[in-house]
């Protein structure tokens, strides 16, 4: 569906059901250079189980209008504008990679409607290799190659995928092609500049879940440990056979973890 936020059209998929702000909501946040399709194996599941689902494209990404936002803080504010515009209550926020940084800021700034937060494949900060930023601006093909090479674990590199016939590696690359060079470069610079995670993470209350990829080279264990150490009593899961793209690489495991956590902490009746 399309709706307007701050004068710009925002696209969000709703998992095949009409958006209904009276129901408990699950909001999914995508990572750098990606879009709503990243969450296709999760959004529909919750939409058909009494939740209302919102999977927005960040500003400038794929179907959403405007320029990409230049800071994580601005993205958190924009997310709050989305929540306010649609008058959403009882939110379970599910975030991946860059989306986790947005979720950290959002959860600290706007905790009122939040019932749970799930962080997937992230640390407190995401320092970005300067060569990657340079490629994102000047050589998108190389940037996409670097991100997907580092982002996928062994199954992804063998073009396996949870949907028969679909290559998750190629599919991921095609999504990123929609968002180069401007959006990807802006996203990466925003991630690189973000330093507030250590400050806001301890302030986040309520149920917190962290799901990590055992083969993740973009958010390795040392980086994710920092996030876990700064959060209040998170439940932590490591999906051993996955790289950075856990929701794509291990969708069944990831969905089961999200289901158990969200059903318990933000029940839909």
């Amino acid at each position, binding site marked *: 569906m399309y709706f307007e936020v701050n004068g710009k059209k925002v696209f969000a998929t709703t998992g095949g059901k009409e958006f209904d702000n009276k129901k408990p909501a699950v909001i999914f946040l995508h990572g750098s250079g990606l879009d709503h399709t990243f969450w296709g194996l999760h959004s529909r599941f919750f939409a058909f189980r009494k939740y209302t689902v919102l999977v927005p494209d960040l500003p400038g990404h794929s179907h959403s209008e405007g320029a990409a936002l230049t800071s994580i803080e601005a993205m958190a504010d924009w997310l709050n504008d989305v929540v306010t515009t649609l008058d959403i209550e009882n939110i379970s926020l599910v975030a991946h990679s860059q989306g986790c940084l947005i979720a950290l800021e959002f959860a600290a700034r706007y905790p009122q409607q939040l019932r749970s937060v799930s962080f997937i494949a992230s640390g407190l900060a995401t320092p970005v290799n300067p060569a990657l930023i340079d490629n994102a601006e000047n050589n998108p093909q190389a940037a996409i190659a670097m991100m997907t090479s580092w982002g996928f674990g062994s199954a992804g590199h*063998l073009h396996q995928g949870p949907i028969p016939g679909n*290559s998750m590696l*190629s599919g991921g690359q095609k999504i990123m092609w929609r968002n180069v060079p401007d959006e990807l470069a802006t996203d990466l610079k925003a991630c690189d500049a973000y330093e507030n995670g250590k400050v806001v993470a301890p302030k986040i209350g309520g149920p917190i879940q962290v799901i990590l990829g055992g083969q993740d080279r973009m958010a390795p264990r040392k980086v994710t440990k920092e996030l876990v150490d700064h959060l209040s009593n998170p439940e932590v899961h490591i999906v051993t056979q996955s790289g950075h793209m856990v929701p794509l690489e291990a969708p069944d495991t990831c969905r089961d973890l999200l289901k158990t956590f969200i059903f318990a902490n933000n029940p839909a009746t």
Partner: protein
Amino acid sequence: MSHFYHFDTLSLHAGQTVDSEFGARATPIYQTTSYVFPDTDTAASIFNLERGGHAYSRITNPTVGVLEQRIAALEGGSAAVCTASGMAATFCAITAILGQGDHIVASSQMYGGNISLMKNTLPRFGITTTFVDPTDVEGFHAALQDNTRLVYGELIGNPGLDILDLEGVAAICAENHIPFMVDATFNTPYLCRCFDYGVNITIHSVTKWMGGHGAAIGGVVIDGGNFDWGASDKYPTITDDYAPFSGINLWEEFGPSAYAMRIRAEAMRDIGPTMSPMNAFLLLQGIETLSLRMDKHLANTKVMLEYLSGHEQVSWVSHPDLSAHRSHALAKKYLPKGAGSIVSFGVKGGRDAGKAFIENVELASHLANVGDSKTLIIHPATTTHSRIDADALVAAGISDDMIRLSVGLEDVADIQADFETGFRAAKKIANS
């Protein structure tokens, strides 16, 4: 820095998850119709496309799935759907996005089955086609109509062997927001990955070089994942809600794989042109050696071109790797390893001499196939293209004396010795 597996590695491994129970190294043949669901919720979610998984082998099968993902990997596509034959792939690929009142612009130099489908069968479903000379890029543009929804061609035209200017036609398609579909059977992804040149969808008869052993019929449609179906309202089968699956919007949910998902959700379910698991296994075995075989096909073809070009009983030889061929420059651009292993030639003495040649060779098999590991020959005008009319034969570049040779993997000296027998018989006819 980035690292991805290379072509030969993907040919062997892509798409396969090693069997966790027994550790089978080869892809197991899952010869089953259906799959036991662990619980009702999982069953419901598979049927509702909330998650991946197998329900019924008409729609998906684990062995076929490995083949699909392997071909998607080799082509650089986002997804692939295998079918019972190459023609099934073509039919499914077209009807996934075209219907009553829609129009195709297609090359006039194509496999006779493709031409017949578009000329005779699709019009019964309200889909019409304008055929254009594949060497005239502007001709594709000129043939576009308001209702054109697809541009279709073969990179290496069968059997005329003209090379389609992929980038030229792709630019016209992009400008007019029409997907560009290419039958890539003759090139295989080893010789050219068409998506690198702006093509949006490829299809193959995997019966041919991909499988390579003449043992199994099969087809595949590969979604390039590079066409913006949502940029116009021309493609409602992809962008509108699809009622049979609880109103799913495939474009929203699956993005770069939406087109392949439409074929899966509609054609495989409602029509059912399914590839068998056994055939998928045989074709996987073939793909494991695709690059090795193609290199040998090309090496033998090079020798045969020299041999035929210098033979006194041969009136003409056509292959894009020959400098005199009108597509030579395009062949060098798109097919730098070589322009495939199909050779057309004429036998001096016309039709009867050609007939004598075909009937007197022994090693080369006279049959209606190409891309086998064995050398094959046929007379297109009376066989593969016999169902198209005289004008279409000319448009397809087929002459009465044309022999189509599919160069195999035998010792090339033995192929030449066999041909000498055929040429001696042809000479007697020509001189009588």
